């Protein structure tokens, strides 16, 4: 009797271990697969030139990634500029001021925002943000634009990263010990003084981790950005210019790339670029968050 139970136990142990190995090997498969596929491009041109060349003309054999890198950076920076202040203030409000009832209403709403698929953000961007920019925002600055711009991409991305930023920031802010706030308040500081000088200072590493994690989310977002950015392979010079972020490049060109040598390799290289950047960003922020969590336990 005991024997069959032990056999079962061992069997489960072995098979689940195998599942673990297989799932984790995905990291290796992605890294190796993309690198191998990128090699032809490296042989054709050196990496420094690829990253700094402005001309993207695969038909003529010139693969400059700068417009795409610039496009990605532009939308990401715009989205961060919008999301960071809004999210910090909202998270602080939820943890320091809001009643439990309000918190119990807001956090589920934020969860819904997180559950909305990217394509719906894209639809919203096309129907709401793009016309808003074209008809109302751009004319204020005296600019004529179709509305399909890096600004549109940035706004849509900002809303997309609200949920992840807010939920992590709320978690981080909740780890601040009550004694610390009480000490500051008892010295006659106002609540806002306490937030500025005590809470935010103490929560800084966690907040940075939340921002880094959201940045990597913004980097990899594909379809929503592709729908609203205009997709012109040029370095954008104003926020009303069209841009062409890296993920959109991959998604847009997969069908036709097979016919041109090196094209596939170039797209795989851009996927590799995304993977490496996002991997590093995620690793850093997760390590910070983990240390904070560990500090709480101990």
């Amino acid at each position, binding site marked *: 009797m005991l024997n069959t*139970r032990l056999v079962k*136990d061992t069997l489960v142990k072995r098979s*689940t271990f195998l599942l673990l190995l297989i799932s984790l090997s995905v990291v290796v498969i992605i890294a190796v697969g993309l690198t191998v596929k990128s090699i032809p491009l490296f042989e054709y041109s050196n990496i420094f030139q690829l990253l700094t060349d402005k001309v993207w003309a695969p038909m003529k054999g010139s693969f400059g990634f700068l417009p795409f890198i610039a496009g990605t950076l532009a939308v990401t920076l715009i989205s961060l500029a919008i999301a960071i202040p809004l999210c910090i203030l909202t998270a602080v409000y939820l943890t320091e001021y809001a009643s439990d009832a309000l918190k119990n209403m807001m956090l589920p709403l934020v969860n819904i925002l997180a*559950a909305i698929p990217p394509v719906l953000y*894209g639809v919203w961007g096309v129907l709401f943000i793009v016309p808003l920019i074209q008809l109302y925002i751009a004319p204020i600055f005296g600019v004529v634009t179709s509305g399909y711009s890096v600004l549109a991409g940035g706004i849509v991305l900002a809303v997309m990263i609200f949920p992840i930023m807010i939920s992590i920031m709320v978690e981080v802010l909740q780890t601040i010990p009550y004694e610390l706030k009480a000490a500051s308040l008892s010295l006659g500081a106002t609540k806002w003084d306490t937030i500025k000088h005590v809470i935010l200072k103490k929560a800084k590493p966690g907040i940075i981790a939340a921002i880094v994690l959201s940045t990597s989310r913004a980097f990899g977002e594909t379809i929503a950005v592709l729908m609203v950015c205009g997709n012109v392979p040029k370095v954008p010079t104003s926020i009303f210019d069209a841009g062409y972020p890296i*993920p959109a490049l991959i998604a847009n060109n997969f069908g036709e790339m097979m016919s041109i040598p090196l094209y596939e390799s170039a797209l795989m290289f851009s996927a590799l670029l995304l993977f490496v950047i996002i991997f590093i960003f995620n690793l850093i922020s*997760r390590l910070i968050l*983990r240390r904070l969590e560990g500090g709480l336990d101990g």
Partner: protein
Amino acid sequence: MDNTKRRLISEKIAKGFMHLSGITVTASLFFIVGTILYKGLPYLNWEMVSQLPKGGFYIGKEGGILNAILGSLYLAGVATALSAFIGIPISLYLNIYLGTKSKVTQFSKLLFDVLYGVPSIVYGAVGFGIMVYFGIRASLLGGILTVTLLTIPIVVRTVDELIKTIPEDLKNVTLSLGTTRWELAKVMLRSIRAGLLTAILLAFGRAIGDVAGVLLTTGFSDNLPKYIDEPAATLPLAIFFQLSSPIPEVQGRAYASALVLTIIILIIVVCTHILQSKQKNRR
């Protein structure tokens, strides 16, 4: 006195900004759902959701998006089932067999956290590369595999959070009765049953909404897939394609399709919420 006044004023200003931020964040959700509802509702009708695209559908003639709705449900359903069958055991293995203090557990959890952040377009590109290598064409199978890989980290992480909420005492008492770890795992699974469904629903929600992964691996088809090696339509892709059409009729259908997807997602969110409060009440 002056100083106090200034500080109280800045407190008021700061609070005002916080209210404003909170309202902006919440309002963005209502703007999104509201825009889709407003634009999609006029075009939504029974024909849209009950029929396959007919000839001339993409120039505004008759038909519906049943192919995309069912394609998405097939794909997300199978992929979620697979990722649950792979993800839940992995989480149990890490927490029960190895224990939370083990270096392997910590390393694996870190890797799953990182994998969770890898965008679906990267999974799609790798999946595409592998399919080209083996000479497989874009198909339901390719999509299912890609989306399964995408959702495994979600399941592992959510189940991991659930296991953390199980009291250590339960574990110790069960083991002290002389159970094997597998029997302990079964006991633990029972106590987080409601939560497991949450994990599965979360994965399903992500799977049904994913575009970038399926764009490269699943293709698109006007017919329902009869076999797993045929290309299949998915709802998000149908929205994307129809929206880029210049014909107003077709664009209208894109809005209606977006509304259908929104409704599916909202149903999932509500179910998740109910299950979550159920899980909380058990404790």
